[in-house]
């Protein structure tokens, strides 16, 4: 059976914990951009689904 996961990507999903901690911005993308502007940095958005 062909696997759905891409060949070169390591499944590190198990390590994806701590989404309620302070690392993660909880507001909108626009508010994230505001923060990035004031902190002279950039925004990283992780897109995922329930699958």
């Amino acid at each position, binding site marked *: *059976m*062909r*696997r759905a*996961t*891409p*060949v*070169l*990507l*390591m*499944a*590190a*999903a198990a*390590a*994806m*914990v*701590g*989404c309620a901690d302070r*690392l*993660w*911005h*909880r*507001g909108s*993308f626009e508010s*994230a*951009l505001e*923060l*990035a*502007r004031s*902190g*002279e*940095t*950039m*925004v*990283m*958005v*992780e*897109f*995922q*689904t*329930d*699958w």
Partner: protein
Amino acid sequence: MSQPEVRQELAQLVVMRVNAERGGEELAKRFDVSSYPTLVFANADGEEVERIRGYLPPDAFLAEVRRVRAGDTFAACLARLEEQPGDLETLTRAVDGLLQRSDPEGALTRLEAFRLAAPETSTAACSVLLFRARAALQDRLYEHAAQLYDTGWKHAMEVPDCGVGVQLRAALEQGLTELDAAEQRRMLREARRQDGGALLSEVDPGSLHGEDILTAARFAAASGIYERATELFERWVDSEGAEAPPEALNEVAWELYLMRQALDRGVKIARAALAADDSPDIADTLARLLYVTGAVDEAIAVETRAAEQAEGKAADAFRDVAERMKTGLPLDDQPEFESYPE
């Protein structure tokens, strides 16, 4: 992302997580994200500067984030290529990135600019890049043709005059869309096979290495050129040897099974994959290959074990396959090309 070093690096950014199907649809559309997970890095003006598809091991991920933070981004690479269109190293990285982002047209534009800027540089690397971009564009054209065929050609299809999809273009000019469905299917398949063969004949096989061999093999299979695909898949396995990741070996074995090509070799490849990764998916591949090569008893044993190891729908599917094997029914899995353009 739970590792302290990774978290420390991420703390320098504004990091957010979006469910692209629950609340994050608009943002996913804005950045044209269609595979998951995907990480998009945007500057403070909201412009994308880099993206990473899929999860990486912590060390590789850390290196990527550091690279992005240092300004060595895909966006910077494209800007650099704009200034120096004849720089092969920058071109290679740009084309890689554009193809990862499903933009073969963008890749071909940069390759043409490179040809004009550095006409004396005709390297093997450049010809492989050109092949990869053309193959990606051709696959996309044929997928688009299949969608239009499915809707009864509600929209006209235009094939750009750039040496890709030549037979498709000719078929459309000859009135493909006016023919009955069976004739359309026949013509589309024949055109795809011929166009695939034309692109494959342009690339020097000796210039293909590593992942590029797999790319060419997948393209050949998608174009219905099974003997060439088999030759390339086998060459890739030979070149990778024991270093080959089991998931990739499983893919190769699965493709050989679907194409019904080099089946004994397929069994060996699947056994090697299973020895490295005892997963039910790989066991299922091996079992099917064993079955079609006549080793029925072992096939049933391996498939039954795969069904016991698997969960959910996969477990049900493997049980069904094991039952088919026990009753001597044929396995009718086929390569996607066999049902193209349906």
